[in-house]
């Protein structure tokens, strides 16, 4: 038996629905149809009345979730694509994210954002918006890179009392597989050493963990031992684990699939240089997507985002510094 990243997300939702009567799911086509990506397959049938199709009204979808949360429910919202969350943006950042701070009433909503580039998806079905949400106070932003984390972080998201932006990478949905679902997991806010090494630290998250790991494998053939840190959660961000890794390697490359300006990679570098400055043997570097919309054509798309090859090249440069 094996289980995909997408199935893990479905299973986490099934378990949340089973274990907690306060959980319900709301989003476009999530009901009978099971969602655009089938992340809620059969859930409407298994949990009647608790998996509801929404109109094409992202603002009202999120607003409704906040209201339900006030009443003690724990809604899971599916955005059909992360890109469309921009029209529900205000309710996320100004309604959900401020509720607890203003009123001391918690706002336990989980907003699932199928995100990230896939070949042929183009500028409006490929965006990575983790930095946009992380800039705002009052939200937790999770970016699982593995099947196990897709499952356990989603359960953790539903369990905590704060709004969670759950960034699930569409490229990992079908291809990434695990033998079974995990029974235990690191908590939210802890990064994970995905691969150990001593020459250079690559800090990354989500799909880029696998590109970085592939780059590390390639560089291993050249004798380099690259450490790959998977952030898992970009807000909160586990600076300690990152700094500890840099303390071991002395070199830092931050990789993200999002746009460069103010991305996760900038935030990581600002933290490491403030807290672990003396640990660095070379200037910290970052590698992000190019600063344009995400292109449709596979040729352009492959050049727009970091890949194992471009990560390896950046790492080589940095190792030579």
């Amino acid at each position, binding site marked *: 038996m094996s289980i995909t990243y997408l199935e893990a997300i479905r299973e986490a939702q099934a378990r949340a629905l089973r274990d907690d009567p306060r959980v*319900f799911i709301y989003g476009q086509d999530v009901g009978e149809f099971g969602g655009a990506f089938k992340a809620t397959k059969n859930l409407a049938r298994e949990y009647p*009345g*608790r998996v509801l199709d*929404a*109109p094409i*009204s*992202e*603002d*009202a*979808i*999120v*607003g*409704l*979730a*906040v*209201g*339900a*949360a*006030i*009443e*003690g*429910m724990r*809604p899971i919202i599916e955005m059909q694509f992360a890109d469309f969350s921009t*029209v529900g943006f*205000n*309710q996320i950042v*100004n*309604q959900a*994210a*401020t*509720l*607890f*701070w*203003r*009123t001391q*009433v*918690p*706002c336990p909503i989980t907003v699932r954002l199928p995100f990230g580039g896939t070949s042929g998806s183009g500028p409006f079905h490929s965006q990575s918006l983790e930095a946009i949400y992380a800039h705002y*106070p*009052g939200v*937790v932003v999770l970016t699982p890179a593995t099947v196990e984390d897709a499952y356990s972080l989603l359960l953790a998201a539903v369990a*905590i*009392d*704060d709004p969670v932006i759950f960034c699930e990478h569409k490229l990992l949905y079908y291809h990434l597989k695990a033998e079974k679902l995990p029974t235990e997991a690191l908590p*939210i*806010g802890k990064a994970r050493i995905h691969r150990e090494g001593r020459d250079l630290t690559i800090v990354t998250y989500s799909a880029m963990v696998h590109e970085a790991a592939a780059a590390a494998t390639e560089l291993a053939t050249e004798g380099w031992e690259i450490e790959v840190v998977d952030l898992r959660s970009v*807000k*909160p*961000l586990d*600076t300690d684990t990152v700094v500890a890794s840099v303390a071991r390697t002395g070199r830092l490359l931050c990789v993200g699939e999002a746009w460069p300006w103010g991305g996760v990679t900038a935030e990581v570098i600002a*933290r490491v240089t403030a807290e672990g400055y003396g640990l660095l043997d070379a200037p910290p570097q970052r590698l992000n997507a190019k600063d344009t919309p995400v292109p449709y054509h596979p040729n352009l798309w492959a050049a727009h985002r970091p890949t194992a090859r471009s990560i390896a090249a950046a790492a080589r440069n940095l190792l030579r510094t």
Partner: protein
Amino acid sequence: MLPTVSEPPAGEVGALREAHLGAFRFMLRARLLDDKFAALYRAGKIHGGVFLGRGQEALSVAVGISLVKTDVFAPLIRDGAGRLAFGEPMLDAIRTYLGSALGSMRGRDGNVHRGRPHAGLLPMISHLGAMISVVNGMLLARQLKGISGTVGAACIGEGATSTGSFHEALNQAAVEKLPLVLVVANNQYAYSTPNARQFACADLADRAAGYGVAAHSVDGTDLTDCLATVGAAVAGARAGGGPQLVVANLLRLCGHGEHDDASYVASALKKSGLGRDCLKIAEDILLREQWADAAEIAVWRSAALREIEDHVAQVQREPAPDPFAEAWTALSSQHLSEGQVQ
């Protein structure tokens, strides 16, 4: 010209009288409280803006008074009267305006941005239209929990009907057949913007058919009409009739905020029926129906003034929020807070 109270069946006269008397006293307290805020503003005692409900008390109180404690209420900036009627302590208003650390918003938010979500009273965010879908969510949650008989009311101005949020939320409520009462105070202006620049339909109540919800029009200057119409809308929602759109016609009898002299308000409008002061009209009804006499009203007025002065004096002695005592985290999960990362 006074509005005529149409003859009710004998047994209901007492209830009508009680409703008017109760409503009037809330209106009076709200008006006097507003006057106090205006005075404090002029005296430089209030940080930021002051937003009054002058001229809208009849409509607002009708909403608050038609709801019961277990209902949901999302007032907006001109709903001082409705808030009091729904049960918001007057202290909450004063504490929020003065930024007292003891207020429900603890100095974090101010003026009209106050509420107690667990008491069914939603603290508005500023983005117009955004509270309606939150009310929907509370109502849906109650349905999911098997609680029935709850109504949720949301108040907005005619300007806010132009927001996408208004549209999405009203349509959402219609699809879910939620017991939402959406009350639009058409006070002819959104800040300085007249209706001609805001919408082009003959009557905002004409929007109801396009959502498949019930429509009610009401003279917002007339307490009797407000009580009857808003009451009917709330009853309709409570009885399972789905969302109810109430459109009231009236005029804002103040500036957008106290910084605004409202010199742009057309004098023809001021002189029209819309420009009548609903408080004055309500008082006239009480007198005409002999439900109260001038002496009683004077007593209520001075009681309200004393209440307000006492509360203000008390709040002015209360501690201001202390930045050193602040948690400075927006998360409920303290262990996930990033604390002082700069």
